[in-house]
C-alpha cells in the first residue's frame, strides 16, 4: 500500500483518512485492503469503519484523547500490510426490465444524446459496474463504470417520488434506487431485486469492490422475479471473482 494518505481528526471520536481526490479502482482496492487490515486487528475501541470514493472514516466508542497515537498505530498498520491477491469480490447479475412503463426517461435521454432507446439499453446492459460504496440511502450502491456515451447531466428538478427498484443514470454515475425516494437521476428501467432487506442480518448483498452487470428481462420475467423476491425464494445469480 503506497498512497500518500492524510489523517484528520473528525470531531473528537473519529479519524478521517483521505486518499488523493480522484475516483479510481486502484484507490478503491487500497481502501478495501486497509479497511480489512484494520478490522483484522480487532481494535476494541473502534465502533465502525466506513468508506467512500477516497476516504475511510474510523469511529471510536470514546473520545480520542491522543490523536497522534491513534494515527501512528493506523500508519503502522497501513505500512506493514501487503497487497494480497485474494480479494473476495463477487459479480452480481441484476435483472432489469427496460420496458417503457419503467424506463420513463428513456425517450428524453434518447433525444438529448442522439442514441436510440435500444442503443441506450445495449450500452447500459453491456457494462460491468464497480460497487464503490453504499451511501445516500439505505442500500444505495455508488456504481462506477458507466460508458461515456451515456453521460447525461442530472435532471434540473429532481422527482419527488422515484419508484423502488428504479435503475437510473446521472452524470457519470449509475445506480438503483433501493426504496421509494426523491431523486434527480434519469430512470431507464426497473429491477425487481431488493437492494436493502431489513429482515436479513446483513441488509445488503453487495460490498465495496464487487461488480454488477445488468441483465435485460421482459416485463413478464420482471413480474415473476418480483413474486419470487417477495416470497423470499429468489437467489441473485452471482460468480466469485479472482482478485
Amino acid at each position, binding site marked *: 500500500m503506497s498512497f500518500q494518505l492524510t489523517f*484528520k*481528526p*473528525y*470531531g*473528537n471520536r*473519529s479519524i*478521517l483518512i*483521505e486518499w488523493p*481526490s*480522484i*475516483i479510481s479502482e486502484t484507490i478503491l482496492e487500497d481502501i478495501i485492503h486497509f479497511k480489512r487490515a484494520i478490522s483484522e486487528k480487532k481494535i476494541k475501541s473502534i*465502533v*465502525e*469503519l*466506513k*468508506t*467512500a*470514493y*477516497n*476516504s475511510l*472514516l474510523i*469511529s471510536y466508542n470514546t473520545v480520542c484523547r491522543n490523536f497522534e497515537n491513534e494515527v501512528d498505530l493506523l500508519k503502522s498498520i497501513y505500512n506493514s500490510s501487503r497487497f494480497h491477491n485474494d480479494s473476495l469480490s463477487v459479480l452480481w447479475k441484476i435483472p432489469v426490465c427496460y420496458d417503457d412503463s419503467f424506463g420513463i426517461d428513456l425517450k428524453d435521454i434518447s433525444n438529448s444524446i442522439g442514441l436510440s432507446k435500444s442503443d441506450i439499453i445495449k450500452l447500459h446492459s453491456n457494462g460491468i459496474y464497480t460497487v464503490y*460504496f*453504499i*451511501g*445516500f*440511502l*439505505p*442500500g*444505495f450502491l*455508488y456504481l462506477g463504470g458507466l460508458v461515456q456515451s451515456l453521460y447525461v447531466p442530472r435532471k434540473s428538478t429532481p422527482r419527488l417520488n422515484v419508484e423502488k427498484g428504479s435503475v437510473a443514470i446521472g452524470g457519470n454515475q449509475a445506480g438503483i434506487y*433501493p*426504496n421509494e425516494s426523491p431523486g434527480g437521476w434519469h430512470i431507464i428501467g426497473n429491477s425487481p431485486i431488493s437492494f*436493502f432487506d*431489513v429482515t436479513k442480518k*446483513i*441488509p*445488503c448483498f453487495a460490498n465495496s469492490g464487487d461488480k454488477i452487470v445488468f441483465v435485460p428481462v421482459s416485463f413478464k420475467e420482471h413480474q415473476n422475479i418480483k413474486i419470487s423476491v417477495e416470497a423470499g425464494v429468489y437467489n441473485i445469480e452471482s460468480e466469485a471473482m479472482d482478485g
Partner: protein
Amino acid sequence: MVEVLKEGFYDSIQDLGRFGYQQYGVPVSGVMDTYAATFANSLLGNEVKEAVMEITMTGPKLKFHCHTTFCISGANLSPCLNNMPIKMNQIVRVTDGDMLSFGKHMDGLRSYLAVFGGFQTEIIYQSKSMYQGITNHFKINKNDLLSISENTAFFNKKHASIKRNDSYLNTKVISVFKGPEFDQLSENQIKALFSKEFSISKHHNRMAYQLEQPLENHLEPIITSLVMPGTVQLTPDGKLIVLMRDCQTTGGYPRIFQLEESSMNVLSQKFTGQTIRFKWVQP
C-alpha cells in the same frame, strides 16, 4: 400499554441510535437531545439507552393502561396528567386509565417522555429508533398501542427529585471542531462564521438544520465522502446545513465544522427564527 388518543406534530420512539450499519447507508438516528433523554431515564432508574418518546413542539394525548412511573425532560410543553399540570424532571406515578396531555409550548422544541423500563417497541439492528424504511413505524400515530412495563413498586417521592441544569435550552453558543474541509475556507469566511449570529431557517427536522444567513462562498463540491450527525456542510450557494441524527451517511458538500456532542443537544432544542453563534470547542 400506552394508547395514543391523539397524535402530536411529530413524535417517535428513539434510543441512543443504531450503530454499525452506516456502511450500508443506514442513518444513526436516536434521540436528538441525548442530555434530556438520558436524564429522564436516569431519574426513573432506567438504563440510559432505554427507548423514550421524542415529542416535538405540540405533544400527543396518551392514555396509560397500566400502573407505572414516568418522567418528562427537555422542552417544557406544559404536560398535564388528567388535565392537572405536572412538573418536568420528576418521577410521576400513573394508574390504569390516567391521561397525559400537553399544552402550551414554553421553551425548547423537543420533550422526552421516559417510562419505567423503557418503551418496548420493535428492535431492528439492535435499536428501537424509528426511521422510515428501517422500522415498520417511523412516527407515532393516533390509535397506536405502545408496549411498556408495569411498575407497582413502592417509591419514595422525597427521593425522586434531582437538581438539573436547564441553561442549555437558552444558550446560543454552539461549540465546533474543524471539519475536514475547514482549511479551504478564506480568512473572510472564517471571520464571518465566528463574528455573525445565524438564525434557524424554517427548514429544520431530524435530518438537518438549515441556517438562514448565507456565507459568501467559492468552494466547490467535493467527491462524495462520509458525513456524520453534527457535520456542518457549506453548499455552493453559501447555505450552512447542520446534519442531525437522521442524516444521510455520505455527502458531497465541503464539511467545515463538526459540532461537539453537547452542542447537538443545544441545537436540537432550537426552532425557526432562534439564533446561534459558533465558538471553538474549549480544550
